[in-house]
């Protein structure tokens, strides 16, 4: 324990002391009030003890001078001394300090402040210990909080990783692929639709018989009634190209309107068979 801490606590205890100081009895009356009878009794007792001591001392001196100077035997001496002490302890009877109440009171008064002092020290000591433990508790709690947070973060991380794992697994990949395919299909559909719209809007079949046209060319043959639209031509080409990639050529027949074929060939969308000029194919764009 810290000395500073101890000092602090001691000060705190001292402050507490002052709070209940007025509850304490007054200081012990000084010796003058001590009854003469008790004093005499004590002195008598002391005299008695001293006499006994002197008697014992005489006995010791006597024994020492009597005993011959035999070579000292440590172990034996020790053993007998210990045995004697043990015997003494076994036989000893606790005796009352004194039967005089005045004497006992004085002794008690002397003893109590000492006890009080010791207990105060114990108190301050345990308070310091308690404070220390509180601090430890606080830090431990903080530590626990931190650990909890770490656990939370780790759990989240685990969940994220699991999701990732699921995504990367076979099923996940399949699912992903399907989604992509669907997306591409949708895109394709929309593209086809847009293409169809554009074709329908900007490339109509020559159905109208413009008078000016007739007058100019004069002998221009009437367009056939069963001509197919540009849209259909493209569809044919594309289907052929996809269905039989080894043989993507389509025979040109009467239903194909020649200007459209010309346009496709000129803009590099279609190309003729190198040997058979009646066959065309879709240009390989890939």
């Amino acid at each position, binding site marked *: 324990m810290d000395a500073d801490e101890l000092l602090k606590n001691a000060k705190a205890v001292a402050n507490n002391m002052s709070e209940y100081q007025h509850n304490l009895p007054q200081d012990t009356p000084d010796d003058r009030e001590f009854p003469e009878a008790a004093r005499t009794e004590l002195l008598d007792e002391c005299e008695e003890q001293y006499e006994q001591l002197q008697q014992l*001392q005489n006995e010791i001196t006597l024994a020492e001078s009597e005993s011959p100077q035999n070579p000292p035997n*440590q172990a034996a001496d020790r053993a007998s*001394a210990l045995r004697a002490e043990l015997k003494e302890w076994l036989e000893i009877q606790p005796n009352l300090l004194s039967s005089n109440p005045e004497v006992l009171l004085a002794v008690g008064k002397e003893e109590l402040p000492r006890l009080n002092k010791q207990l105060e020290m114990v108190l301050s000591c345990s308070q310091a210990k308690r404070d220390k433990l509180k601090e430890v508790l606080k830090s431990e709690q903080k530590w626990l909080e931190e650990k909890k947070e770490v656990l939370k973060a780790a759990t989240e991380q685990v969940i994220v990783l699991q999701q990732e794992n699921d995504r990367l697994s076979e099923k996940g990949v399949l699912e992903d692929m399907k989604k992509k395919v669907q997306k591409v299909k949708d895109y394709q559909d929309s593209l086809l639709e847009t293409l169809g719209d554009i074709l329908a809007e900007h490339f109509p079949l020559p159905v109208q018989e413009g008078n000016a046209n007739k007058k100019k060319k004069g002998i221009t043959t009437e367009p056939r009634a069963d001509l197919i639209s540009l849209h259909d031509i493209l569809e044919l080409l594309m289907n052929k190209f996809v269905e039989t990639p080894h043989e993507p050529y389509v025979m040109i027949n009467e239903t194909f309107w020649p200007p459209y074929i010309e346009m496709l060939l000129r803009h590099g969308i279609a190309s003729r068979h190198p040997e058979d000029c009646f066959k065309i194919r879709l240009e390989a764009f890939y």
Partner: protein
Amino acid sequence: MSLKPYSKLPELNTANVLLVENEEEFQKRLSEAIVRQENSVNVTVRLARCLPLPVENAEGRPRIDLVVFIVHLRSEQSLLSTEASLKHLDSGYFLGKVCFLVTGARSGTVSYERLASIKRTAASLNCPLLMTEDKTTEGVHTAAQRVLNILKVSAGLVPMASGLYLSTLIRCSMPTDSDWQNQD
């Protein structure tokens, strides 16, 4: 004439300790520390270079309650002087009124033979052996405190305890050979 433990009457609330040290360098500091620390009991410290004590002032000398032999492991002379002094002590002192104070045991240059020797002596006499530090103030303070504790018991100032009893509990035990082999 050897020193006897019970040849004189004890005095009230008094404890007398005799510090025996050949070099006379540590005992003065130690005695000051002892006297400074104790205030409830009247402690007198007597210093001696070696035993036996001079006969001239034997009459005026109070009863010695504890004899402390200070041994410096740094010097061989310290050990030899202590061994010689031991012979002049009455066997009654060895029943709990002698203790050994060893200094310098921490220094690596000290030969283990010396430490083993003093340990063997202490063990054969069943006396406590205190390892102390004499270079620092704190070490001296601690040594004084330990000597004082033993002194109070051996002077009979602690109820329900006697020097014989205490020394039986804290006596130095005989070093075994393996202890020294391990340290080598």
